[in-house]
């Protein structure tokens, strides 16, 4: 057994270089020498300009992608293959289109051999928690983009993973639903503290949810350029906390650190 105080997830000196399959000499180093450590029960948000390598880092953490250099440790043990302690909420559509919402939520339990009756009961419960009670019989193409995201959330959380990796889970939702979901997520999380890596474009969302915000530099050769502990009291209400002076102070500080990188990233995409 790994030691109790080992970090839940440790990405150490990760470098990711993509090589085009047909032309080996056209390389793109998305991430360079990046280190990200997440303690058990810690809620970490990662912000950074678009295309900087946030999804790439999560893919590394879950074991879908192997880093070109560096090591990944899960509860102190080097990661081999897929990360069995992690749940992953993909940025893009990942539901099985041939399964109803309910059957998508039960999928993980089914793969683990949980009996159908029990799985359905738990899935109904989770659908209700993400605000989709009564929509279980619908197929993904019959749901809105935001509803699909919430089904995916239920699909991941029903398995109660030790580490939750979320890639811009709420960016498809309107601001009100989004704040509801954020509060719901915080409530779930504080009842049963898991390690969370939460990726977002939205700095306010990052601050209001997290214990720590990590800012990535613009790509290529992305690495963390700042870490900010968020010492706002919990439990929080994501709407109210945005009005407190401490929040505004933190926001200003992090925004200053980010601004240059966002402009850099934007300039680069314009040139291309």
């Amino acid at each position, binding site marked *: 057994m790994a030691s109790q105080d080992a970090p839940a997830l440790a990405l150490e000196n990760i470098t990711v270089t993509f090589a085009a399959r047909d032309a080996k000499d056209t390389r793109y180093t998305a991430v360079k020498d990046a280190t990200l450590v997440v303690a058990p029960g810690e809620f970490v948000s990662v912000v950074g300009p678009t295309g900087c390598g946030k999804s790439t880092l999560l893919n590394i953490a*879950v074991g*879908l992608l192997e880093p070109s250099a560096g090591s990944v440790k899960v509860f102190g043990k080097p990661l081999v293959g*897929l*990360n*069995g302690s*992690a*749940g*992953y909420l*993909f940025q*893009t*559509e*990942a*539901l*099985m*289109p*041939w*399964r*109803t919402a309910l059957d998508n939520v039960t*999928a*993980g339990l*089914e*793969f*683990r051999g949980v009996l159908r009756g029990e799985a359905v009961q738990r899935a109904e419960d989770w659908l209700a928690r993400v605000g989709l009670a009564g929509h279980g019989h619908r*197929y*993904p*193409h019959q749901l809105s983009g935001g509803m699909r995201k919430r089904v995916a959330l239920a*699909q*991941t959380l029903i*398995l109660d993973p030790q580490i939750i990796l979320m890639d811009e889970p709420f960016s498809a939702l309107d601001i009100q639903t989004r704040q509801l979901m954020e509060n719901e997520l915080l409530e779930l999380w504080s009842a049963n503290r898991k390690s969370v890596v939460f990726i977002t474009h939205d700095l306010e969302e990052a601050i209001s949810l997290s214990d720590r915000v990590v800012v990535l530099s613009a790509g290529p050769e992305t690495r963390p350029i700042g870490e900010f502990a968020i010492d706002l009291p919990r439990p929080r209400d994501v709407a109210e906390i945005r009005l407190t002076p401490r929040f505004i102070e933190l926001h200003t500080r992090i925004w200053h650190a980010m601004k240059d990188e966002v402009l850099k990233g934007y300039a680069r995409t314009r040139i291309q």
Partner: protein
Amino acid sequence: MREPESSKGVWARMRPRQGNLRVWQVGMLLVFFAIWHVLTVPGIVPPLYFDDANKAAFFFGEPLKVLSRVWDWFYSGAIYEHLWVTLWETFLAFVIGTVSGLVIGLWLALNPIASALCDPYIKALNSMPRVILAPIFSVWFGLDIASKVALGVTLVFFIVFFNVYQGVREVSPTVLANARILGASQRQLLRHVYVPSAMSWVFASLHNSVGLAFVGAVVGEYLGSSRGVGYLILQAEGTFDINTVFAGILVLTAFALILDFVVSVAEKRLMVWQPRQGETERI
């Protein structure tokens, strides 16, 4: 927009539109039979092309005789045995072809090396005119239904095979990765991701494969058999009984249509998860 009823001509009210399509379709069929009738029954119109009034009937049959032959078949029950054999062959060819196409398609699609190895042979087998195998199958499997089923299978197999192959390659990498992270084993991936994805392609080609299974059965019978609708046609042809030949063709066409309809119903029920155009309901 709306004009008063009286100002509409007869044509304006009668012309084909969504509501009366069926009526027009039946009407076209009746007109076709009427023309056929007028041109072939000796003595109605003077021979236009042939030098003898009876020749048109000899070459093209007479619709009334054709229809009465069909009626006789069903009334006396003589056709059922043959129809049953043909449909049974179709069914067997369809099932065996689909299952083998599915299994081999999945296997090759998931084994890049094996698929690279077999690639030229698959291409060769597919481009070969496979109907030509019928005589060989007759030798191998005899004149009973097995040789017809074999012919149908070779036709169905490749359609299903290529669709399964495509279906497996079209699986969204994200859906696949998600299923793996949710804990699916290799077997479960096959069952819950690859097969459903492949099945959507197989169903898209269902009309084709059922149709070809039918073709395989009939052509097989026609080339040598002792039962089946193809055999009836073959026999009638031997005695220059053109009316019976047409009657057989008519029955085959009708059953092809029925099979197609059954496939459409099955498709609708099995593919509910696929988005379709225009699913809104008009109120």
